[in-house]
């Protein structure tokens, strides 16, 4: 079959570098910032999205996960307002975002706004469904998203410049410098994203008004080799963004948010014959301002500064047994228009254990306890086994207790906070099956989860609004993931697909939670031939309830969205790549929030220089 035929039949495609071995695989393990993700995630399935996948997706983490994982996202139209992500029918506050091993969910509201994470800033993003491990702390109930950038030792210098221009005056610029020697390595990214975001709503006379946004940032990952056994690493990032909040009608009051986040992490790694010791210190700064009216100064604002000290000692008792002890202390100090001045300190200790009984049979277990004056913290634990009876089949079993701590807002909001809140906590089990045939992997996972003490804000008798531990949720479902690579001569094909079935019910009312689709599926196909590549991304999202009594009259309809793109590389030693992408190629009408339509068919052009 010729390339042309394949193209005309399938409409599919690749990036020449698409599945080129990602840099990190060849890396010395000590350079990895999020060591536990690799060492202790043996009993769960992880989707890894590398540089080339990141490049195909529009700037925000929201757009990336929407098309590449079973994570369900809702936002106020494209790139607008707050993007909330959830796994397995849980909430955005039950989704942990972990940056180089550090949980970066907001101390103020407990979640990460996925529109404030620019994927341009990272080399690799990993998605892990389920609680599973105790080490990612608060919010790792439904799952976790891991952001990482990794410096590489060895003499090299590589500069990448990328510019994207698309519909609605959407612009993305990115400069990445990757250089190093035997002693020193730096991976630095500078980016700027902006959009007028003033698209017409499909089949409507209305348009997206006041939806413009911009964000800029610098991300640095660097490492210095003091000796063969001692490394110093520094990870830093700054994000500065402003998003206007789109209007429902033209006369709505125009509002906007400003976000400023700065994160710094220094790590000293010492490697012995049988142990790895890591000492980490992190300083996180988060600040937001909400402008109730564009013409006036911010009326709602908060700043939280968080200091984290962490010591992590991993010891190989034998070649098959690994023990890992972690102690950490987090001190967060917040102030703001609605939370006045508060600090909290949280200490924790965790013990992880992994045993490879035979090449076929592994198990791992972990416990973690937090100590704080602010709330009663439950003992967290997790355990998992992996059994591989045949070379092509393995079965994984995992169970855990996880939690989500009350936020500054929950505890201290105006006259409405509730200092007696307990953390939300969950019990969950999952069973995973992994099949490998040649270059095809299929993972099937079933899970069951109970969440209790869900925090909900209610109008009350002792205060206007206050949060209480009121709801219990029962969730169960299944996830299927497929990855397949085929090389036929110089033709390369890659297929990635996910499907998730999720039931998530309020135990009291027996109703499905709002905005949780029963069905979500994604499929991505890439094709590459010499310097030509192409891809198709598709997404299906089943209908969702928007009313807690599951009144179908208000349901958001199911939708399917398809993006397609092609690119071509010019140049010999240096690479000049030009790409074109058609988004929402089928011109589907869809929304992830009531009354917030996404744009119809639109496009963008990408220019990339690799020097």
């Amino acid at each position, binding site marked *: 079959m010729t390339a042309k035929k394949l193209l005309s039949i399938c409409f599919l495609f690749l990036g020449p570098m698409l599945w080129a071995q990602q840099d990190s695989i060849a890396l010395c393990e000590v350079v990895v910032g999020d060591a536990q993700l690799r060492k202790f995630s043996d009993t769960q399935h992880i989707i890894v999205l590398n540089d080339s996948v990141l490049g195909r997706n529009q700037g925000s983490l929201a757009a990336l996960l929407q098309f590449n994982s079973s994570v369900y996202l809702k936002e106020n139209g494209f790139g607008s307002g707050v993007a909330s992500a959830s796994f397995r029918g849980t909430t955005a506050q039950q989704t942990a975002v972990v940056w180089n091993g550090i949980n970066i969910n907001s101390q103020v509201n407990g979640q990460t706004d996925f529109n404030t994470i620019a994927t341009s800033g990272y080399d690799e993003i990993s998605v892990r469904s389920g609680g599973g491990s105790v080490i990612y702390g608060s919010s790792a109930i439904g799952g976790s998203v891991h952001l990482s950038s990794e410096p590489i030792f060895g003499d090299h210098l590589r500069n990448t410049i990328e510019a994207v221009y698309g519909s609605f005056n959407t612009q993305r610029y990115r400069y990445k410098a990757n250089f190093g020697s035997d002693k020193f390595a730096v991976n630095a990214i500078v980016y700027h994203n902006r959009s007028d975001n003033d698209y017409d709503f499909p089949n409507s006379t209305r348009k997206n008004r006041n939806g413009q946004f911009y964000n800029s940032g610098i991300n640095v990952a660097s490492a210095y080799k003091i000796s063969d056994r001692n490394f110093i690493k520094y990870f830093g990032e700054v994000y500065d963004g402003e998003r206007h909040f789109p209007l429902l*009608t033209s*006369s709505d009051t125009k509002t906007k948010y400003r976000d400023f986040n700065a994160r710094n992490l220094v790590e000293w790694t010492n490697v012995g014959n049988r142990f790895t010791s890591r000492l980490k210190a992190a300083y996180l700064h988060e600040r937001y301002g909400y402008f109730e009216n564009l013409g006036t100064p911010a*009326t709602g604002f908060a700043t939280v500064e968080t200091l984290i000290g962490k010591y992590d000692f991993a010891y190989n008792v034998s070649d098959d047994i690994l023990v890992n002890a972690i102690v950490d202390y987090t001190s967060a100090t917040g102030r703001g228009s609605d939370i006045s001045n508060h600090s909290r300190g949280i200490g924790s200790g965790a013990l992880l254990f992994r045993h490879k009984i035979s090449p076929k049979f592994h198990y791992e277990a972990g416990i973690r306890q937090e100590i704080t004056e602010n709330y009663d913290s439950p003992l967290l634990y997790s355990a998992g086994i992996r059994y591989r009876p045949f070379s092509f089949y393995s079965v994984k079993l995992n169970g855990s207790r996880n939690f989500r701590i009350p936020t500054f807002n929950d505890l201290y909001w105006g006259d409405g906070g509730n200092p007696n809140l307990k953390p939300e906590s969950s019990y969950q089990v999952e069973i995973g099956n992994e099949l490998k045939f040649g270059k095809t992997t299929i993972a099937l996972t079933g899970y069951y989860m109970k969440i209790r003490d869900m925090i909900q804000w*209610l109008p009350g008798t002792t205060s*206007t609004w206050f949060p209480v531990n009121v709801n219990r949720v029962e969730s169960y479902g299944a996830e299927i993931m497929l990855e397949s690579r085929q090389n036929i001569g110089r033709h390369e094909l890659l297929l990635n697909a996910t499907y998730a079935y999720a039931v998530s019910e309020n135990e009291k009312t027996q109703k499905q939670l709002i905005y949780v689709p029963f069905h979500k599926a994604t499929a991505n196909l890439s094709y590459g031939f010499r310097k030509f590549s192409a891809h198709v991304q598709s997404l299906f999202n089943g209908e969702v309830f928007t*009313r807690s009594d599951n009144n179908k009259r208000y349901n958001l309809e199911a939708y399917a969205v398809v993006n397609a793109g092609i690119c071509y590389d010019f140049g010999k030693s240096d690479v000049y790549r030009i790409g074109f992408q058609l988004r929402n190629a089928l011109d589907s009408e869809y929304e992830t929030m*009531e009354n917030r339509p996404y744009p119809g068919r639109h496009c963008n052009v990408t220019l990339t220089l690799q020097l």
Partner: protein
Amino acid sequence: MKINKCIFALIAGSVLLASCNGDDDSNAPLGSYDNGILVLNEGGSTGGASVTYISDDLQTVQNDIFTAVNGDDVTLGLFPQSIFFSGDRAFIISNGSNRITVVNRYTFEKVGEVTSGLTVPRYGVVYNGKAYVTNSNLFTSPTDDFIAVIDLNTLTAGTPIPVNNQAERIIEENGKLYVSGGFYGSGNVVSVINTSNQQVTAINVGTAPNSLEEKDGILYVLCSSWNGPGKIVRIRLSDNALLGEMAFAETMVNAQNLDIEDGFIYFTAGPKIYKVDPFLALAADTPLIDTGSESSYIGYGFAVNDGRIYIAEGADDFVSDGKIFIYSENNGALVDEIPVGLGPNGFYFN
């Protein structure tokens, strides 16, 4: 949606036919939504506002009549708070969209809108060819509230009247505007505004005056914060003098919705409805009706009209449609319970 529209067309058609048959019957409907009750549903932060029509005999209930008549592309905007009327026009005030949507009150066809000169508009009243609409302005400032003055012919806003206190509900009497200045637990005054010279006088009445009505030259003002007992203050309109107060039993917390009908004052406190003589010195906690509702949003809308008491209940989580209860004014017996839209907050009568 399409089926709903067909049904609507059928109903509308039959009403038109029926109206052609009548002679000079004064009850002949002036549109599909005459001779009935309008329930305003404010919706949530993602929209979903609607108006429910219920016929006087309670036999016909039609949800979201505004969309049925005007189509999906025309919206009431976010959080319609209240409706006021002038002739055959209804003015629907949406506080989240700084918008007043003008419709024919009987057909619900949109005939105009006011979209400038408003910042979080709340309630309105008509006097002498002008509408006076209270505006909260910034939520964080209690002193920047104002009255928008709207020409009812051109639907344009003229120079606003600053109130310098919170401005919520508004009534007109003898060319003067009386504005309640309370909200949840804040505010202490009723503002009196002379429409001829726009002079504003503040009368201190106590914590959170939230509803008011005039009867026989006396203004009755219900004051109550969300967490404390309330009272009714009587003010003589001729000289703004405080005539006295009716205290409430301590158990009657968060009283709202003062309405005077047939010589009695009606109001709500939580799930209970009270009927009191206007000149009582102390209102005991002996409700006329206990709705038995467990929702925090019972009493989100309330009215007494033509022998019936109407009370609206928002869903406890405000994420599902609410319902209304109708009681007999005579004996407090439950007449009917009708599901309506999301967040029902007011009753209006055609």
